[in-house]
């Protein structure tokens, strides 16, 4: 966040904060409302994560001022995101059916040889 803000800048920011607050409250109601539809697991998960991601982006961009933050901060966050995705991939990959992977590997190898 730029240190040299004018009074007008701050007042404009305050209006944005109120708007973001209303958006977050509405999205919370939407999340809970959708959960009462009792959708199947996968679409329910995707909708819940999509709404949560929008809410998190609003908090990070406006309350945490990432929208106007310096590049070094974005690099710090990007490195955390890369490690986070890698960790999730390892956990989820550990659940992959080993027989399916072996069959797939054989299929790829045989088509390559042919």
């Amino acid at each position, binding site marked *: 966040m730029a240190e040299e803000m004018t009074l007008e800048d701050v007042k404009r920011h305050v209006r944005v904060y109120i708007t973001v607050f209303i958006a977050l409250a509405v999205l*919370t109601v939407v999340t809970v409302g959708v959960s009462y539809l009792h959708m199947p697991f996968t679409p329910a998960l995707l909708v819940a994560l999509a709404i*949560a991601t929008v809410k998190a982006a609003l908090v990070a961009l406006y309350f945490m001022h990432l929208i106007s933050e310096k590049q070094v901060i974005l690099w710090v966050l990007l490195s955390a995101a890369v490690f986070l995705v890698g960790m999730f991939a390892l956990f989820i990959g550990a659940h992959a059916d080993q027989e399916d992977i072996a069959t797939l590997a054989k299929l790829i190898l045989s088509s390559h040889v042919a």
Partner: protein
Amino acid sequence: MQIPYEVQARPDTGVNNAKLGIWLFLASEVMLFGGLFAAYVFLRIGADAWPGMMMYGTEVMAERADEILNVPLATLNTMILIASSVTMVMAWASLKMDRFDRYKLYMGLTILLALGFLVVKSFEYGEKFDHHWYASTNNFLGVYFVLTGLHAIHVTGGILVNAYFWGPGTKLWKRGTARDKAHFTNRIEVAGLYWHFVDLVWIFLFPTIYLI
């Protein structure tokens, strides 16, 4: 001794040391909560049923988390945390506008809302304990108590920091020089970044644990 770049931006990074420090800390927090979320995903993919068998006097098969957890209370807590994020950022904006009285009001509200969150959480935990449901009962409750418990510890830490900046920490502002005021405002921005992160974690905890 004067610590350099506590308020002014470093020429190499473009930000002051406090801000870079808190963002590095938050990056490590992403990995802490991320690791526990990954464990949650791991356990849930491998589970035959989620939440699974629960004791309600007799054994009952629970197929949705909202059969076990109190969604209205958690929704209330979500609203409380969102409101506290707004009051926190308004506290910082008040200092930017040189309105210390408003700062005290908004920071006080942030602390009260955070305490409200913990009170609601204690009611929620109390319901579970009444059923003799603990973190050791099954994987579902283990995930629920560990993730929400760790989050509650973070809320408590935020309350302590914010209470310091509401009370004794204001001495820095009251010295009255422009430099001291800028230093104090910077401290509130850094404390705010931590507080918004706590809100951000809850934004993901709430739907993934309570609603699906």
